[in-house]
């Protein structure tokens, strides 16, 4: 039986330094007017969840989707971390981060979820690679976070409780690759079972 969360899955924007730095020159301009202070969060609703091995349907309006490979921190009782899981956080590419990204991120199936929970491990030392149709297209090193896993957890916990079963993803690195229907996305990371999903064209 593959792993699926039981609580709310939260994602965070701009938590890799390279991703933050790439946008930094525009952060003081409208509509943002200032760099973010609190973690910039979003929710991947339960309709987005796809187990590892599952096909993910891509609608015609999104010829290519952005692959956001990351690690989700899974919570247990009393705010303790129960473990970590690979996540494939897909988005319809969008240039503005002013409004919540529901129609870009909450499409059916748009979150691939690793096959198993990894208990333990030091999230500051995690790294991952993304292969599309076998070709290495992306890498992320979790020592390069703006907020470390521990800091992110603390800053989010300042205003909301992370409940048993909730998942907090640690962020996606800059240079997220694009993929289209027919392609196979594989996310691998030392200490984790690989997460594989194939994109298919949505039935008309």
């Amino acid at each position, binding site marked *: 039986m593959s792993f699926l969360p039981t609580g709310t899955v939260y994602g965070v924007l701009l938590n890799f330094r390279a991703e933050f730095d790439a946008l930094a020159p525009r952060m003081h301009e409208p509509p943002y007017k*200032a760099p973010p202070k609190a973690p910039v969060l979003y*929710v991947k609703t339960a309709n987005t969840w796809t187990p590892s091995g599952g096909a993910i349907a891509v609608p015609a309006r999104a010829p290519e989707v952005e692959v956001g490979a990351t690690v989700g921190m899974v919570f247990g009782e009393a705010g303790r971390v129960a473990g970590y899981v690979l996540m494939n956080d897909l988005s319809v590419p969008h240039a503005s981060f002013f409004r919540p990204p529901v129609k870009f991120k909450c499409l059916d199936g748009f979150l691939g979820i690793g096959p198993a929970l990894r208990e333990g491990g030091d999230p500051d030392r995690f790294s991952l690679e993304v292969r599309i149709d076998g070709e290495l297209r992306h890498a992320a090193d979790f020592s390069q976070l703006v907020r470390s896993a521990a800091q992110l957890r603390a800053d989010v916990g300042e205003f909301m409780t992370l409940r048993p079963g909730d998942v907090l993803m640690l962020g996606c690195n800059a240079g997220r690759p694009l993929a289209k229907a027919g392609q196979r996305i594989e996310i691998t990371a030392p200490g984790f079972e690989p997460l594989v999903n194939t994109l298919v064209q949505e039935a008309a």
Partner: protein
Amino acid sequence: MKHARVVFEGRTFDATERDGQLLLADGRTAAFDAVQWLPPLAPLTSPARPRTVLALGLNYADHAKELEFKAPEEPLVFVKGEGALIGHRQITRRPKGVQFMHYECELAVVVGRTARKVKRGDAYDFIAGYTVANDYAIRDYLENWYRPNLRVKNRDTCTPIGPWLVDAADVPDPQALALSTTVNGQVTQRGSTKDMIFDVPFLIEYFSSFMTLSPGDLILTGTPDGVVDCKHGDVIVTEIERVGALMNTIEES
């Protein structure tokens, strides 16, 4: 019928309203003030999954104007975690030092059937019922990143909901309901659901065009003009005709 979930004598019960009292699932009755009220929605099980809570911003023309925004051309939508929800007659926390925290009285739609690519003409077939939500916002924490950001909209205790889930059959026209809020008994907000920019059938069609809605999911449909600051000790009642009056107390800490 009006459905509630309450804690009575240490146990959680489904209950219904009867003659001004709660009729518990085990046949006993209890007074409204003898129970702790929970959100009127049972946790989703088999398989366990989080409820999707979609919420609208700027969905009444007057409120959009009040906040100096032009009316949106498509729905302004954000998502809450289920953990933000609390029940009727509970405490909502106002952080010390905050300048502007306001209520938002909203009609909440509870999905009754799996909804995928539903046309607006069929939308009402997919609704189980309605409840009242008070979608508090603390404007001090607004930032222009995925605005309204979760620090404003997903805080513990900041989304009271209830007291009742009212069956859709008992609300023949959800687009013609008077809506009001009182603070310590003084009316501060008045409106009507007829003034929504994007009405309930539109929203069901819009969401279900790209995301499947499941039974128990929620859509909070936005609030009209008339939001005011809420201080420590204030008793806030958000009320919607035919659906209910949701009471809540602010506590600074």
